[in-house]
């Protein structure tokens, strides 16, 4: 016996309003960006032209200029930045967590985390470069300061999700607050927090490559100078080396994170947990 299909939900009015907002937003943006049809149609050809001239990449020339060392300098900057972020953020994360810290301490510390997170690394570097001088140290410090904000927030959330039982056990044995944190909370949250540190390191490698573009050390400066001289085969080689290093570090870090969280067992969607925390969306 045929059954009538259920009626479609009526959302037409709302959809029109949303569509109107989108079209209006797009029109307003395009109007402000001084786009002409000629430019729009010419752009793909221009981009393709540059991409085309990068082949074959001049690996030999770039290698002799010491670009591989510059890429690794970016990695060192990212590592030192991550270490600064991790070391500074960990104690403050305990003071910022709802379940283990009183309100009058945690509220200001949370606000500091939020404030630090809101300033992009590059902007921090712009402030720091006149103070520290051009060089990798400015980049490492900028990345470190920014990482304190994000790592602090993530670690704080990990602590808030921890089981309170062990802390109560420590308190029942007469342990003070610090003992409760050290023996009750830290062993629970350390694997997750370590994997956040590694995840942040992956992000920081990209950030430190970019920081070089404004003179804070690393591979970015090399890319800019090759582009200024329009030496496209060298640009291609710099890009290829950077991408190779970034992808290797991502793969290595993902492997280590998987080992830390699951002990090497199989996991589905291993990045999803980190992604969910990053975006504040849990599935």
């Amino acid at each position, binding site marked *: 016996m045929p059954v009538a299909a259920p009626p479609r939900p009526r959302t037409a009015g709302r959809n029109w309003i949303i569509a109107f907002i989108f079209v209006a*937003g*797009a029109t*307003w*943006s*395009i109007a*402000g*960006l*001084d786009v002409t049809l000629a430019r729009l149609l*010419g*752009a793909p050809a*221009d*981009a393709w*032209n*540059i991409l085309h001239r990068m082949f074959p990449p001049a690996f030999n020339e770039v290698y002799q200029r010491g670009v591989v060392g510059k890429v*690794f*300098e970016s990695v*060192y*900057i990212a590592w*030192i930045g991550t270490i600064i972020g991790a070391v500074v953020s960990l104690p403050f994360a305990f003071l910022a967590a709802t379940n283990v810290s009183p309100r009058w301490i945690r509220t200001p510390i949370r606000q500091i985390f*939020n*404030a630090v997170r*809101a*300033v*992009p690394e590059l*902007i921090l570097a*712009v*402030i*720091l470069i*006149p*103070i*520290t001088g051009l060089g*990798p*140290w400015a*980049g*490492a410090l900028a990345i470190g300061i920014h990482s304190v904000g994000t790592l602090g927030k993530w670690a704080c959330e990990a602590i808030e999700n921890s089981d309170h039982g062990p802390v109560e056990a420590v308190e029942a044995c007469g342990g003070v607050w610090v003992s409760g944190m050290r023996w009750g909370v830290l062993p629970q949250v350390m694997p997750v927090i370590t994997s956040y540190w590694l995840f942040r390191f992956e992000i920081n490698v*990209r950030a430190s*490559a*970019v920081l070089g*573009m404004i003179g804070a*050390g690393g591979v*970015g400066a090399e*890319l*800019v100078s090759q*582009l200024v001289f*329009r030496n496209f085969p060298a*640009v291609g080689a710099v*890009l290829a080396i*950077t*991408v190779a290093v*970034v*992808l290797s570090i*991502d793969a290595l870090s993902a492997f280590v994170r998987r080992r830390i969280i699951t002990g090497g067992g199989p996991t589905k*969607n291993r*990045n*999803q947990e980190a*992604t969910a925390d990053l*975006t*504040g*969306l849990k*599935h």
Partner: protein
Amino acid sequence: MNRVTTPEDGRPTRPRLKLRTFLTAGLVLLFTIYSGRQVGFTISTFWEVWSNPLWEKFWPVPWEWVFDRSNVIDPLIETFQIAIISTLIGCGLALPLSFIISPLTTPNKPTYLVAKGIMNVVRAVPDLFWAKLLVTAVGIGAFAGSWALSIFSLAVMVKLFSETVDSADPRPLEAARAAGGRHTPAVRTGVLPTVFPSYVAYSLYVFELNIRASIVLGLVGAGGIGRVVEAQRQYFRFDRVLGILLIIFVIVIVIEQISVALRKRLV
């Protein structure tokens, strides 16, 4: 079985640290020291940064200059325009591409592998590298910036959203296929409705990322408020730079709060 208690006092023994743990810790420490040397890190540099007399050049902030329309407000509007158009383009293109890149909904294996490989490489190039490349290709200004951010938000969005599609419930899709649906309609009716709220939520997140990214695009000549920061930095007008930074700071925080509130309602 391991003996967990000692006979004398009944307390559990402390677990012994493994050799491997020491080795790992040692390697990490060595790498840190080596990196620190390469970067030029010493503890005293912290003090040198704090005690630098140049800090005084950041103060006082010339507010009348900062609030002048043509100095800061117009470039700031340009920043928003770049972020809006790149979010629309990037997230719009990401919708079909994410379905291609998820094993659940991909039309065929070769397309999946090629698309996934390309997107991985695209994502490995940092956002400002794209900006600088496109500035060289299509000229200085917001046009290049919009292109760069569109590419970058496409890459980020595909990564985030295709993982959601991966973990979508496969049963409606199987039902649609069992009923004889072709590939595209089956995916549209079987998977899209269940993942669409996440799509909108991720788009908002990508918009937030794009606002942050478009602020700094100008540092490499790709338009927006960053070009004012870059210009004033070269004139050593750090007081003006600080004024702009404070405005940026307020805007980023406000946008983040709105975006978080909207996303909480969606998911």
